[in-house]
């Protein structure tokens, strides 16, 4: 499933990330991330490696994930 379709408060594992430049932030294959919030019309808030970031929808569409916990 795509990261953009994930639910708030879920814990996910990244399967692939086709957007270059994100791996340095820890967004890469195998990383465990936590979706915090998905406010309407705004970037989704995720927690990756202890850092809270806003991720644009266009980026979130390029990341596939597997649900670990919802």
């Amino acid at each position, binding site marked *: 499933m795509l990261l953009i379709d994930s639910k708030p408060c879920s814990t996910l594992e990244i399967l692939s990330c086709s957007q*270059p430049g*994100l*791996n340095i932030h820890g967004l890469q*294959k*195998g990383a465990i991330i936590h979706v915090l919030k998905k406010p309407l*019309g*705004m970037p989704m808030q995720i927690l990756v490696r*202890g850092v809270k970031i806003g991720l*644009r929808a266009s*980026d979130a569409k390029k990341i596939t994930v597997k649900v670990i916990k919802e």
Partner: protein
Amino acid sequence: MTTFALVGAPNSGKSTLFNLLTGKNQKIANYPGVTVESSIGKLDQHTTLIDLPGLYGLKTNSLDEAITRDYIIKDHDNKHLKKFSEAELDYHTLVVVADSTKLERSLYLCLELKKMKIPTILVLNRVDLAQERGQEINLSVLEDELNIPVLETSRFDLNSIEQLKEKIQKTSSDTKTKVQSINASKINHLINVDNWSQENFKAIDNVLAKSIKKKITPDSLSNKLDSFLLHSVLGPLLLLILLYVIFQTLFEFAGPFQDFITDSFDGIASWVTTLGLNETLQSFIVDGVIAGLGGTIVFLPQIIFLFFFIGIMEETGYMSRVAYLLDSFMIKLGLPGKAIIPLLSSHACAIPGIMSSRSLNNERDRIITTLIAPLTACAARLPVYVLLLACFLPLKYQGLGLLGLYLLGILSSFIIAFIMKFIKPSTNVQSHILELPSYQFPNMKMVLKNVWNNALVFIKNAGTVILALTIVLWVLTYFPKRTAPNEGIEHSYAGKIANVIQPAFEPLGFDHKLTVALIPSFAAREVMVSTMATVMSVDDAESDSGLGKLKEKLASQYSLGVFLALLVWFVFAPQCISTFAVIKRETYGYKWPIITFAYTLVLAYLLAFLVKSLVA
């Protein structure tokens, strides 16, 4: 002399440590990408310390990060490294600053440097916050695992800063490890292998698994605050309310201070008139020097409040939230969310704003941001706005009027960016990470220090450039001396110059006096308030010409249409030499400063004309 440089992820506190260690005044704020230009300081007589822009890792995405990377790998072709001496470039050891609250991420650079055999000391900063959130680390295990010295620091614990200083001093007597210089393109090749980052993060996880005794708890306070401040509807609404409150306070709080300054200058002026000086000398002092200085200094309270509020927004971490809230806007404009930071900082002054566009990922975005940054309402516009709004609006609505002008500035910059999307389309697809740092209580001492520095710059300008321009203008308006008391400014040299230029401003409703006051403001906008004071008082030789009367005089002489046209003129017109000098420096040529000058001038003229035609 030995050189040490501070490197590390953005927002980890490098500049804070730099200031504490060297007594310097680098700007500090709670968002990534504050420092975009390196700074040199002295730790002691023999040791130089260098503060650099933050970077996450050696694979860089932006100009400011590239400065640091090239410093680290000793690729000295980078233009921004030219200011360093040989000894400053040839560092002894790098001090890697990592944020203790984000170790999983902030050790990344440290591991990369270790792989490249670059000598480092690791500093875990912000340890006060990490401990508050329950983190416990076994430092000696961490040292063993990484095989480099590790220290913990907090800006609140001066002892820890002293220990860092001693550590650096002690290290400087160790024999220096020679660092091989590498070419920037080579390093990209080296670290572009697929699993480079994966391996690094795995290594971090291993190290932390061994050295962390107790894990850090989530920052629940920030999350709670964000559920309001970043709410889809509440968030933007709260932002608007906050801005409105700030602007209204700017008027209400600054009012009494302003009255005091006005009264003081008027007091000095009337004292001068009792001295029985010769008429020309008296006019020079009263209408030239006092009107010029006083006319500008009167707005110091507002400048102070403005920088105070900006400082608080930056230090608490709210500024990054503003970037987040406006992100969806930015997408439609074809700009990255990060571009909002240069645009927001331009509200203090376009110069640091334009420089901070270095943190953007590509040239196109950087140029567009530079192009539109001069439209946002900088602090130099504030005095003009305040004066003109007070001429036709009751106090109650002045804050709202000011908010309107600020919004007009930023919205226009958005519109220009939108138009540029079609003229110079964005070519590369890039990621747009918006870091949301934890909220924190602002470091008041630092906020106030920053306010003080900016106030000093303002006073210095008022005392030099603005005063000089005002005096020149006084000479031009006072001579040739008038023969009859009822002769207006038209007979002076300035009046004659204005005769030539004024027809161009006629359609905007600007008469001789406004034209005379307007011309010097092409050098710096805030000159307008003092030139206006001088022009009005020279022109009106008969009546008592105090600064306090300036507002009433203007209000009685010009119509609403003229005030609105003037305001619109000041929103758009290119009136700041320093801004264009910076655009030239940052874009390496005359093309972009000329384009920026031309388009803002045309825009200012057309829109002021439109407003004047619509409002009689």
